[in-house]
């Protein structure tokens, strides 16, 4: 059986109408939980890549991969977690920081190599890209300043090239 683990799965699909609905429908129909799902075109515009983060033990994961492989639109399914891979997520946080706190926000942000992308009279927005751990740590650091809104993309991932 194995323990319940988070898996990052890369699903290459034909860039057809309704593919996203079929893939997400499969997860809901079979009761698998999706932590995040990201989709976009690849270097070949006829192929899209979905990066899906799911949780499950070995058996559930194998079922997810097998069931995805049954979808006619699916070209390939790769469990990135089996090997070394790089994942990134982007988050934008709108902070209602008072003028006096802004420099402090920018200071923390610079440690995370986050960028200030919008500055208004009552709020500022910072953007950070990184692994899940880094993004979560950054969100925690921003919390005391007063987060007004937060948006994250979900993970995209790619396998590391062999050394």
């Amino acid at each position, binding site marked *: 059986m194995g323990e319940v683990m988070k898996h990052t799965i890369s699903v*290459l*699909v*034909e860039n057809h*109408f*309704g593919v996203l*609905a*079929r893939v997400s*429908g499969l997860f809901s*129909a079979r009761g698998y939980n999706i932590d995040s799902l990201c989709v976009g075109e690849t270097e070949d515009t006829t192929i899209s890549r979905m990066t899906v983060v799911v949780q499950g033990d070995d*058996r559930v994961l*194998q*079922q997810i991969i*097998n*069931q995805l*492989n*049954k979808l*006619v*639109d*699916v*070209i*390939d399914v790769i469990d990135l977690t089996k090997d070394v891979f790089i994942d990134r997520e982007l988050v934008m946080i709108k902070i209602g920081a008072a003028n006096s706190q802004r420099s402090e926000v920018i200071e923390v942000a610079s440690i995370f190599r986050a960028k200030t992308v919008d500055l208004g009279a009552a709020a500022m927005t910072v953007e950070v890209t990184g692994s899940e751990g880094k993004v979560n740590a950054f969100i925690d650091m921003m919390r005391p300043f007063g987060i007004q809104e937060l948006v994250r993309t979900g993970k995209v991932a790619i396998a590391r090239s062999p050394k």
Partner: protein
Amino acid sequence: MKRATEKRPKHPLAGKSMTGADMILQVLADEGVDTIFGYSGGAILPTYDAVFRYNQEHPKKQVRLIVPANEQGACFMAAGYARASGRVGMCIVTSGPGATNCVTPIRDCMADSIPVVLITGQVPRQAIGSDAFQEAPVFSVMSACAKHVFLVSNEKELEATVRTAFAIARSGRPGPVVIDVPKDVQNYLGEFQGDGYLRFRGYEKRQAALSASRVTKESAASFFKMLAHSKRPLIYAGGGVINSNASQELRTFSKRFGIPVVTTLMGIGAMDTSSDLCLNMLGMHGTAYANYAVEDCDFLITVGARFDDRVAGKPAEFAPNARNIAHIDIDAAEIGKVKSVTWAHTGDAKIALQDLLHAGKNFAGDFSPWLRHAQNLKKKHALNYKKTGDLLQPQEIIHQLSKLTKGRAIVTTGVGQHQMWAAQYSEFVEPRTWITSGSMGTMGFGLPAAIGAQCARPDAVVIDIDGDGSLRMNLGELETMTTNDIPVKVLLLNNLGDGMVRQWQNLYFGDRFSGSDKSMHKKDFVKAAEADGFTFARRLTGKSDVNAVLKAFIDHKGPAFLEVMIDPNAHVYPMVGPGLSYKDMITGEYITPRADDETPVHDKTEVPASAMF
């Protein structure tokens, strides 16, 4: 799927200008469609017009059009056609309600791996999403049910889409494919190509791998090592054997090595049911001897079956003495899904069995003591039922009918007690003669499926063994039979209610027959059949002349209807309760349980309804 690069003669109509609807018809004709089941309507009118014109222009190559009372009926007819023939069943309906009426049969086909292609009309492209008249989100709805769905948004892809749909429906693990065609796409005028498929790189690759999949030498060696270590091997064969047309290989395999076979509900007919090697159906309402054999076997050889909950109610305790379990399936996702196995092969059952037969040429194992044991079980724990009293017993009727047809009739059913009795008490000599809604368990399946089967096999005697509940669900199709002179024999086993539901209410719900008692219903089925034009419509109420009436019924030229008033208290036994293992099987009053194995006494304590499924 065939690739465009293959050298094939040019289509005689290639380059001809025609409408989308005409292209659809031409591709259907190219794919060998001889019967379309369907119902017209606004958004599919151009295609129905094309059917009419096609038949006008091809007096010698007519495409038969069977119009049902309800689209659900049409789609089940296509399913019955596919099940009886192994060819792709074809159904064409209109948008909106026409399409949504087909959701149940499409899901039914998916659950039982039946190849059908359904074309649904859709509102014109510019109206999609506007809540237009008779608009329904067919793509979304069918996505959740079908093997694949197309919405033809680019008219230039229409022709290739229809061709591709057939290829997908019949390849790999077969299934239903839906094509949603906007009305303006049916009306567009374009050049017919006569060739070409849509590309599905992953699917094509996987199909190519499946087609090339062979049992390797090493794998076969490990299989025969398991077999050599086994004293009590048992084959567990399912619908996959029927789908891959592997019955002959299965029979040869079983005979060559002397291994008995149990079949699932979907696998009935894979073996000649009267053969000594066939232990008949296993599972919830399987024969006691099949289930005992599963309990006893030490090597379970699974072919095209999937350990579903009606077979393995408690997977951990299924085949508890099997040291090895082998699994051959065309669907990789089925291997290890429910039960872990020790040997597996993903591929076509027919080829896999041929490979194993070849690899086992010199295998010298002898399982005759075990075979004797199995045949002993078959004798000692045979099916049995109430033989006394004045009431007609359903098992007796089915048994007599099967004797009259010598096991060569095509039998379709609804869902419930009558379905299980038909599975238990009919003999089947050939595959594709037992046609039932297995996984979905759709009541109302029998009547339309029988019409479809008869269209596929005009030579065969086709009998719909139905129940009063199931028959009511698609009763309108009685008229379809007489209108089209489809000589199906409809045998209604009437027990004035939903018998299987009643059986469960009796066992688990303290005899509270909520919603299942129909003794106050007013329907006179014989009059209904007469009103629909049946010239043979009779009712049997007593035990005299059963055989003569059954014979007249079968021998009647043309559609025939026979209602048999059966004992409303007849139950289906054996029974393995839901979620239980075979050791908890109850055999009822008339079947002898195993004496050497303490049979748990069935008490009527209530099981919480939440434990049911």
